């Protein structure tokens, strides 16, 4: 046994440490260096799912039901498979519309309905009370186990230690959750503290597990072996578990489904997963880190349960304290104290986040609407932020006191796990409205209201009230059916038997819930506001920044300012208007209260007081036109038109830019061409002028020198005129001004003629020419003079580059498919691979600098232009040192499709 004073001091010290962690987290957030901007911290904060229920209750359940503790953790693991799809959408929606609670989420989706928000809040408060009670029970039971003090819950309430514990926990929750005046911000410090607690409880539980498994026993195998030796314990290891006949699929399914939904719908999970999410991308890693955490914390559940039963020899209620009593019984008091701290972490983490989340809902969705509807409150103009904070603080206290009340009433009759499942079943009622609302545009407010109301009434009747009846607060006869009507027996509704009470309740409540939700949605008509919100939710990913604003009317700027000031505080309101002015590019004092500004103010206020209340406030401050369904459609249409315009504008801009680039590069090309032409003209001119001047200035020039000079002048003049002709020729072809006299052409005859006219050239070079021509080829449609130009160009190029005296040129004509191919192969030096692309460029001449054969550098470009104009292609095959092979192809086609090239 440990001294009560020590336990209290350590507990209190630990809670103070948590406050320090939270304060540090808040400080870092203020400095802009967020402590929780990490997927690890994010995942650890999710582990607030593992409350005292997990910490103590799992072992208890394992001791009585074997592996039946598992579905509660399988569900979340399965749910995480869908996290990236579902959770990310929830986060995106909540972030976009500044949603801060699950009540807000559902109400906002169905037309910002205050009624729906209030209903969800009520269900949450009532449903969550057993859960809070459970934590209180666990901590006080743990305290008793540790100090050996007798339970005092039968004493008068003012002497009950649990009450004071509840009060001090309320104090801590107030410190964590409502320190900030800016209400719509996230609670960074709280999340940091929760993540810290998750680490502590995991470490403590693993420590106890290792101690029991390897300290008290010889490892897992040893425990299994000893368990098998005792028939009553061995039964736990079978899948059906002790006391169950065979495997009960329906119950496994029910429990797994229940926990799958709960991990998203529990207020504290919504708070840490959605509201406190710093960065959507963290979801990806957290969605496997969190299941890993669940796996770790469950590894030692069975060993501890079995170990406890082996040592204490019973499987009774005491099993829920094995985590504490096992170390204690072996004299490991410090380990027991650590285990107690772990349990305290689990309980306080849950209570803090849960009450903060629920208090937000109570404040925004129950208290605010009531206050706002009382005219006096609505008219006073002062800053309400402090009032809001105080409402939340009172709500936290109230929720904890109600939890304590439930603990006093029903706490003794149920095991921890059973109490927790009652809460799970309550929040599961949110699933159809919430999940359906994210994916089904046709879901309506009436459907959501009906489903929630029906489902939760069935839940209360089949699960909540029986829990009170068992505790003796309602006549036990109630369990056999009110007024003796057996078919209304709350745990066997309409004679349905064979399920345990949880599966039974879940079956009926979800059936009623989904039935009403779908049925009423399909029957009813939607209001304009519902339709617009449905669109904003379902298509949150499609919209991006260009979201339509569903608001029409007139508002005055100073009304909006006053409104924002009341709920956000003067500084934040000022910042809001400044930001808006900057983003819209207007001066602060010339802002107009247009739909976008009204929408922005409403969203910001929604962060502070909930979407439904914010809607009411904006309604009261502005003169709104009520929208019809047609208006909504029109706005959607406008928005999509704006998007279309924007996209078209963007496309046009891109096209313009491309065109401009093209023009610029064309301009550059023209500039380069002109520069090249100038260069090519000036070079022969230079020789002509210089030599002429020199001859004039040198009367005594030698005759052979004079002759040499005159020959140069002549050839340079020819070069000049050739160049001028070719430049003009190319310009005509390129601009489409060239005349084409297309007719049926016999390519073979054309080649023979071209060979004849270049024969002298080859003879001078001492080169041999081989022609490989078929008997007959089909006619092509072409301009024969132009084709001759191409052939002569290729042949004279070949003549220029073949080696003197041993040149060899092969000309071939082939009929390949639907085209004719002409090749001219030489045995010259060939073209290096890096130069091959450039041979068809203007003014690119082959050959070495000094001994380059004469030419203008325009022959090949012109030839290629001609071939392309006739619908064909021209290319080059060459290996350096193995000659070059120029080739071109022409399509075979009939007259008529001729001169479209």
């Amino acid at each position, binding site marked *: 046994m440990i001294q009560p004073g020590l336990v209290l001091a350590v507990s209190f010290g630990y809670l103070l440490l948590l406050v320090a962690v939270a304060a540090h987290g808040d400080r870092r957030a203020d400095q802009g260096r967020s402590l929780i901007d990490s997927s690890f911290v994010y995942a650890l904060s999710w582990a607030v799912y593992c409350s005292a229920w997990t910490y103590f209750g799992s072992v208890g359940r394992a001791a009585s039901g074997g592996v039946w503790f598992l579905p509660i953790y399988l569900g979340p693991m399965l749910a995480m498979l869908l996290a990236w799809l579902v959770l990310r959408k929830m986060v995106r929606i909540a972030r976009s519309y500044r949603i801060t609670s699950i009540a807000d989420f559902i109400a906002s989706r169905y037309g910002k309905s205050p009624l729906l928000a209030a209903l969800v809040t009520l269900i949450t408060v009532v449903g969550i009370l057993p859960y809070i009670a459970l934590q209180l029970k666990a901590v006080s039971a743990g305290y008793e186990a540790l100090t050996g003090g007798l339970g005092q819950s039968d004493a008068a309430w003012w002497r009950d230690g649990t009450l004071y514990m509840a009060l001090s926990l309320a104090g801590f929750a107030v410190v964590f959750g409502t320190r900030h005046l800016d209400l719509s911000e996230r609670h960074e410090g709280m999340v940091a503290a929760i993540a810290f607690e998750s680490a502590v409880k995991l470490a403590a539980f693993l420590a106890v597990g290792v101690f029991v498994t390897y300290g008290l026993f010889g490892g897992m195998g040893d425990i299994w072996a000893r368990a098998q030796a005792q028939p009553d314990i061995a039964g736990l290891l079978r899948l059906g578990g002790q006391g169950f006949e065979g495997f009960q699929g329906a119950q496994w399914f029910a429990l797994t489904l229940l926990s799958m939904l709960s991990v998203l719908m529990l207020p504290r999970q919504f708070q840490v997963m959605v509201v406190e999410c710093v960065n959507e991308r963290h979801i990806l890693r957290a969605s496997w880190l969190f299941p890993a955490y669940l796996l770790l914390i469950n590894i030692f559940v069975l060993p501890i349960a079995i170990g406890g039963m082996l040592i204490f020899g019973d499987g009774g209620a005491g099993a829920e304290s094995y985590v504490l009593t096992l170390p204690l019984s072996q004299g490991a008091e410090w380990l027991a104290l650590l285990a107690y701290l772990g349990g305290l972490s689990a309980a306080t983490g849950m209570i803090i986040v849960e009450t903060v989340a629920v208090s937000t809902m109570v404040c925004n969705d129950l208290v605010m609407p009531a206050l706002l509807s009382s005219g006096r409150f609505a008219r006073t103009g002062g800053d309400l932020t402090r009032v809001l904070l105080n409402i939340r603080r009172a709500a936290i206290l109230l929720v904890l006191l109600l939890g304590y009340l439930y603990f006093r009433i029903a706490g003794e009759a149920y095991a921890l796990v059973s109490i927790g499942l009652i809460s799970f079943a309550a929040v599961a009622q949110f699933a159809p409205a919430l999940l359906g609302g994210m994916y089904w545009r046709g879901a309506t407010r009436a459907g959501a209201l009906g489903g929630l109301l029906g489902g939760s009434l069935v839940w209360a009747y089949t699960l909540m009230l029986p829990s009170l009846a068992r505790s003796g607060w309602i006549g036990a006869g109630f369990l056999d059916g009110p007024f003796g009507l057996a078919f209304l027996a709350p745990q066997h509704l309409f004679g349905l038997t064979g399920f345990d009470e949880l599966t039974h309740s879940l079956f009926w409540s979800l059936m009623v819930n989904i039935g009403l939700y779908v049925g009423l949605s399909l029957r009813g008509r939607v209001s304009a506001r519902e339709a617009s919100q449905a669109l904003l939710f379902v298509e949150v990913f499609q919209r991006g920044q260009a979201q339509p604003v569903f608001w029409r009317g007139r508002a005055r700027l100073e009304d909006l300012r006053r409104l924002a000031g009341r709920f956000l505080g003067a500084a934040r309101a000022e910042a809001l208007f400044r930001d808006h002015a900057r983003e819209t590019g207007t001066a602060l004092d010339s802002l107009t209260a247009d739909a976008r500004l009204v929408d922005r103010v409403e969203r910001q206020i929604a962060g502070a007081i909930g979407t439904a209340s914010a809607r009411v406030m904006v309604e009261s401050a502005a003169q709104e036109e009520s929208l019809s369904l047609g208006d909504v459609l029109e706005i959607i249409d406008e928005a999509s038109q704006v998007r279309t315009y924007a996209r078209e504008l963007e496309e046009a801009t891109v096209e313009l830019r491309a065109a401009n680039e093209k023009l610029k590069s064309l301009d550059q090309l023209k500039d380069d061409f002109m520069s090249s032409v100038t*260069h090519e003209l000036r070079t022969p001119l230079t020789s002509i002028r210089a030599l002429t*001047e020199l001859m004039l200035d040198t009367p005594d020039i030698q005759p052979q020198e004079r002759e040499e000079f005159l020959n*140069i002048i002549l050839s*340079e003049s020819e070069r000049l005129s050739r160049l001028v002709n070719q430049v003009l020729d190319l310009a005509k072809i390129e601009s489409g001004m060239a005349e084409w006299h297309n007719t049926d052409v016999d390519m073979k005859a054309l080649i023979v003629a071209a060979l004849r006219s270049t024969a002298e050239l080859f003879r001078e070079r001492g080169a041999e020419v081989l022609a490989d021509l078929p008997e007959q080829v089909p006619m092509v449609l072409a301009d024969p003079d132009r084709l001759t130009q191409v052939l002569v160009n290729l042949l004279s190029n070949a003549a220029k580059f073949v080696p003197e005296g041993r040149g060899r040129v092969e000309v071939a004509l082939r009929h390949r498919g639907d085209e004719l191919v002409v090749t001219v192969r030489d045995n010259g030096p060939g073209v290096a691979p890096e130069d091959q692309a450039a041979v068809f460029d203007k003014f690119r001449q082959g050959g070495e*600098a000094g001994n380059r054969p004469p030419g203008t550098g325009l022959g090949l470009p012109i030839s290629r232009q001609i071939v392309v104009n006739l619908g064909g292609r021209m290319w080059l095959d060459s290996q350096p040192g193995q000659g070059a092979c120029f080739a071109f192809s022409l399509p075979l086609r009939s007259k008529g499709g001729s001169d479209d090239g």
Partner: protein
Amino acid sequence: MTDRVLIADDEPNIVVSLSFMLKREGYEVLVAPDGTQALAMIRGERPRLVLLDAAMPGMSGFEVCEAVRADPELSGIRILMLTAKGRDTDIARGMGAGADAYVTKPFSTRDLIVRIREMLA
């Protein structure tokens, strides 16, 4: 002692005219058909003046000019750039590369020889 002048140009006919002109004036003439050989001859033969064509294949006249100016041992060598491209940017490029004079083609041999005499005076 006669001054040595290097002609660096890839157009043989221009080389013919320039070397005739320079020999007539009594200079010793060296010829290089491209930039790389021009730079090698500048280093080896140390001509007093180089008539340097700007647009030669391989190493261009601009690059040769820059290489000469970057070498302190070649500091006394005078460079006259010849170019068939008359754009302002080409002239700026030539002067930027460190040429002493810049003459566009086609040039007058009468003017050119006056410039050469001045540069070698």
